[in-house]
């Protein structure tokens, strides 16, 4: 037998998904993440699966051909500050690039927030005498003696990694390259990241930020990935290990170890990959992944995931921007733990404060007294207190009622059911706002889209989200509880190469641009060659990031190919730009010329995808476990059936209101909706009438 394994190690849980290549069966499981040795948690989860299969863990691993590893390890390291002691070398006269970021703030009247520290402290920032101008000319030669002195200081101060970002290195990298040579000579054991290599884009803050984040992760991630490789090998694994990236793809361990920034925010980037695999023919998909503290949205349009260059670790403006082109994930801190409160004007608010996992929602019975979204679901009868997370946690119904009565129902003078409903409605409204912000920015109509729900809490709220968005189809994959991990099963090896080169369509520089594109093509050739991708599995996509004259923010426009043969090719690109501008900004300026700034090539080495068969053998039909009261907005309960998901047969259809309990998620089918069990075990909810 041959198996494939995909893993997603999150902050709390490690999710595993296993498929069998011959029987086309699929298993999903979870275990607590073990921080000291990540493999232990994974092997806990896999052991349970191997027992279900009827083999040992060693047998499972030794028969596994492909292991995809998605991890929040690097993201967590950044948040907790456990990264390497990193030095930042930059052009003399410009030491505050990381301190000042790009500016901006959310609320102009709020002076209570602390100004954030730079990613690298100023005392580890070094000014390198040199200057290159925007045309690549050297205005001031590199002060090599000073670089040697800096290297000595780095050694003395026990710096563990270094990042170099000099102005205009994207046009003329000579100085960055020379600094790297000197550092390599003086400090052979310290990893160095050069800004023009990790992220060759205009804008010194973004490039510097990419470089320092990448450098700071190198020692840690290189160690971590080596350890994972060793643990897997000792466990019997002989197959290929691939690591998830923020491009929504995977890469070899060696490539990731050289550019560990690619793993930052990679876990949520796998959710749309899973979404696309679950609904390959959909024109537009909105993927919502909701856990206990966070809600992530991403979109897939015409089979393409939406990318952005603005990924923040932490809050917008006060966090750190990765600067890389990556799958666009809109994240809000809303989840089951979000706390409901009444503001001084008497308005009900939900979040942003969260009860987190300790003390947790009141119904957890761990001393929490505040009303949370999970408490609301318990009061409304959407969650069975005895079957939360497959019965792993018993919930305290009375505590949930008390929390909502005291904190919300009494102050507002409404019933506990109305209060619970309002909490859920406001929490979902915040999520809907997050969805709208990412969809409208892309000109995508949620009403015409398929919603896909993932995460432990996704199935409970997605129905209401669909109502608010006026969408009429929702897919809850049977892997919903481990959506990001399952994305790993369906991902390809993806990497990007890019070049900064400004040209104007009024005076299009065919020769230079074609030479740049040819260079990108050659880089892709070398990449495919190195990883041994068969020719028929090689795919390439080319993009330009372009703008109207005087603009500074670019839009992505796909190119027809990797060469501009004639004016026709240029015109097609211009048309593509006008259309994208119209879609995103509601206006365009036909006839206006277009400035092209970056050229981007994406290499995709397609991996074989598992085909899955229907999981269910037991064809019991649609018999509920029980029928009881649940509330959906009114004071009067509705008779609501509760089904055991795994015992529903393919093709079965159940009418809302009802609740379907799956081992890793709970699905609430709202009144007016029905849920059909697809042959592969996924649930499709549709609006009736």
């Amino acid at each position, binding site marked *: 037998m041959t198996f494939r394994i995909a893993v997603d190690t999150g902050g709390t849980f490690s999710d595993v998904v296993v498929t069998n290549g011959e029987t086309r069966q699929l298993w999903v499981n979870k275990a607590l993440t073990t921080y000291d040795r990540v493999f232990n948690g994974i092997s806990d989860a896999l052991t349970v699966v191997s027992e279900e299969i009827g083999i040992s863990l060693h047998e499972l691993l030794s028969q596994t051909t492909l292991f995809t590893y998605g991890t929040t390890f690097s993201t967590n390291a950044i948040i907790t500050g456990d990264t390497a002691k990193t030095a930042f070398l930059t052009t003399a006269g410009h030491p505050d690039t990381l301190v000042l970021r*790009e*500016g*901006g703030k959310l609320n102009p*009247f709020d002076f*209570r927030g602390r100004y954030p520290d730079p990613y690298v402290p100023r005392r580890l920032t070094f000014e390198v005498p040199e200057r290159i101008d925007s045309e690549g000319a050297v205005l001031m030669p590199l002060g090599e003696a000073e670089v040697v002195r800096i290297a000595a200081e780095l050694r003395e101060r026990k710096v563990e990694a270094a990042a170099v970002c000099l102005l205009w290195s994207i046009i003329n990298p000579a100085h960055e390259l020379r600094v790297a040579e000197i550092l390599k000579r003086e400090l052979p054991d310290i990893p160095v990241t050069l800004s023009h290599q990790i992220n060759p884009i205009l804008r010194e803050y973004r490039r510097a930020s990419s470089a320092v984040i990448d450098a700071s992760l190198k020692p840690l991630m290189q160690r971590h990935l080596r350890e994972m490789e060793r643990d897997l090998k000792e466990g019997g694994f002989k197959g290929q290990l691939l690591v998830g990236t923020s491009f929504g793809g995977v890469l070899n361990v060696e490539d990731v170890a050289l550019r560990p920034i690619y793993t930052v925010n990679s876990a949520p980037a796998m959710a749309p990959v899973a979404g696309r695999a679950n609904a390959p023919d959909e024109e537009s998909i909105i993927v919502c992944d909701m856990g206990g503290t966070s809600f992530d949205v991403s979109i897939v349009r015409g089979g393409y995931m939406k990318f952005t260059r603005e990924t923040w670790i932490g809050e917008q403006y006060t966090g750190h921007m990765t600067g890389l082109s990556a799958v666009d994930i809109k994240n809000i801190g809303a989840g089951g733990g979000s706390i409901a409160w009444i503001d001084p004007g008497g308005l009900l608010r939900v979040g942003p404060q969260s009860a987190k996992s300790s003390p947790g929602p009141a119904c957890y019975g761990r001393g929490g007294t505040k009303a949370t979204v999970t408490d609301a679901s318990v009061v409304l009868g959407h969650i069975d207190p005895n079957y939360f997370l497959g019965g792993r946690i018993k919930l305290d119904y009375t505590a949930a009622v008390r929390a909502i009565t005291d904190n919300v129902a009494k102050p507002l003078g409404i019933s506990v059911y109305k209060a619970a409903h309002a909490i859920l409605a406001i929490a979902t409204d915040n999520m809907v706002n997050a969805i709208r912000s990412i969809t409208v920015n892309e000109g995508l109509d949620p009403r015409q889209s398929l919603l896909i729900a993932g995460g432990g809490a996704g199935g409970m709220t997605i129905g209401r989200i669909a109502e608010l968005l006026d969408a009429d189809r929702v897919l809850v994959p049977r892997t919903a509880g481990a959506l990001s991990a399952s994305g790993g099963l369906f991902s390809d090896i993806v990497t990007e190469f890019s070049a900064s080169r400004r040209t104007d369509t009024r005076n299009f520089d065919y020769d230079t641009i074609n030479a740049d594109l040819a260079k990108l093509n050659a880089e892709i050739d070398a990449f495919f060659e190195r990883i041994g991708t068969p020719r028929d599995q090689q795919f390439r996509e080319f993009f330009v990031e372009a703008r109207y004259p005087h603009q500074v923010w670019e839009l992505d426009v796909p190119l027809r190919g990797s060469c501009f043969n004639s004016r026709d090719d240029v015109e097609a690109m211009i048309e593509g730009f006008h259309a994208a501008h119209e879609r995103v*900004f509601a206006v365009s300026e036909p006839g206006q010329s277009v400035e092209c700034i970056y050229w981007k090539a994406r290499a995709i080495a397609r991996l074989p995808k598992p085909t899955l068969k229907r999981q269910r053998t037991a064809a019991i039909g649609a018999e509920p476990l029980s029928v009881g009261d649940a509330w959906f907005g009114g004071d009067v309960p509705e008779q609501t059936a509760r089904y055991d998901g795994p015992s529903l047969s393919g093709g079965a259809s159940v009418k809302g209101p009802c609740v379907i309990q799956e081992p890793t998620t709970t699905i609430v089918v709202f009144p007016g909706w029905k849920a059909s069990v697809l042959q592969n075990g996924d649930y499709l909810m549709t609006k009736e009438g």
Partner: protein
Amino acid sequence: MTTEPLLLAILSNRLDRIVREMTNTLLRAGRSAVLNTARDFSCSIITSDNELLASAEGLPVHVIGTELLAKAMTELHDDFREGDAFLHNDPYLGNTHPADHAILVPVFFEGEHVFTACAKAHQADCGNSLPTTYMPGARDIYEEGALIFPCVQVQREFKDVGDIIRMCRRRIRVPDQWYGDYLATLGAARIAERRLKELCKEYGREAVRAFIRDWFDYSERRMIDAIGKLPSGRIVGEARHDPYPNLPDGVPLKVTVTIDSAGGKIDLDLRDNPDNYPGGLNESQACATNNVMTGVFNSIDPDVPHNAGSFRRISVQLREGCIAGIPKFPHSCSMATTNIADRLVTLTQAAFANLGEGFGLAEGALGMGISYGVISGEDARYDNESYVNQIFLGSTGGPGGPVADGWPTYYLPVAASLMYHDSTEVDEQKYPLQVWEKRLIPNSEGAGRQRGALGSKVVYGCKNNPMTVAYTFDGHENPARGVRGGMTGQGSDGWKTDKAGNRIAVPMAGTQVIVPDERLVSMTGGGGGYGSPLDRTAELVAHDVSEGWVSIERARNIYGVVVTESEAEKRLYLVDEEATRKQRANISAVANPSNS
């Protein structure tokens, strides 16, 4: 209340989102750097009764008072209808200053006017007699020279009124850039129109109208609650703008704040200020009003909504013909959004600090200086193409407050950290500009328990042809003051260096033409501190020393904190607790000899 609490929350969220969507459109689609990098613009939604309803993420100086623009539309045009759009930049008719072009789009649902969507953006050029949007020396509107549009129709049936576009194209420098900005601004208003119609369709006109009423009432309750937390009393704030052309003594400014805590009311009186003068610093009515209101909102719970509902609890007394009031035509209001405006914001918030511990803010540093100059010329790299634009390279220092230090990305009191600053690389690519230095200035902060932010030093020159730089200062003679024992920040400064590196003085407002090898130097001010520096947490002072923001001597002499270099790591400083305790006791004893 007729709107269910749930619906109230949902609709207010929705409006917020619509404004954010407008904002995103303007930011991304805007052509000039003033918009697409500095985001010197704002978007808002106004009711059909001309009351400000929503304004998320808008620059305070732009947003409050936008309802005056909508009022001009409904009063001047009795036949406005769907598909219309109006261009308004008239400071005598409710606008901020002539460089801010506002586009107003009336939003109709089922044939009825329900909202007015407004997007307002600072232009790179507005047709002034000099290539700058700030004309400190203009004796009147004629000398200022801007094209003025007193709420003029610019679209009919969703199509441009060609006459207006042609006028602008003829009189505004770099017309393609202007037209691109116009499209972006219009796009933002039209997006709001689309979304607001969807909203009305979803909930029905009556529910939306009921919501507006209830949302204003809710906002008013929040304001009453916030004012209830302030002590009652009358406080007077005074400050002085630096000397200027035609204003040899500067401008003395005064605001009287009367707080009625129990009655939930605040009155702001600006009538006791000098008359209009022949120059560009005169405030417009919209600015004078919103500046002091901004000072109030900076001093209370920031969660209180900023709309006509909360505004009901604030009254502003203005006088006609007053430099900080209602401008008398044809006095120029060219600089109404910055200089005196900044003074009024920061003066009001500092006055609130006099109410007691925990109230108000220190003064933030002001004056745009040379690092916010408007640059113009011809770029030899691109066939001598003309360019004109304001650059935003170095921020002034933000004010210390009751809980947080000032932000070094403050920009100006009226911008309140909302703006982005320019990327050196973007500026150097777009303009023949060479930025030699951009850094924070150590020891420039107003010391305090919460210190002001540092000012910045920016040095730049030009690459090829001569470059014209128009700039204006403030905060050189009258830097940002601290409150409650906090200290004054370092003042702003600026000069030119010639080929040999000699320093050449420049006037506080004016125009310089520089050639390659010459450089302009800009030093923006530091923000004022809040509370005594002797009360600052010693570890924070040591951190400032490690980071190079504060020198070892200044830590000892001003903050009373003695630091020692860590044995484990060079350049990392730790608090010497015993020496610090003694040093702080000594400084206190010298300052208050009677106590010892």
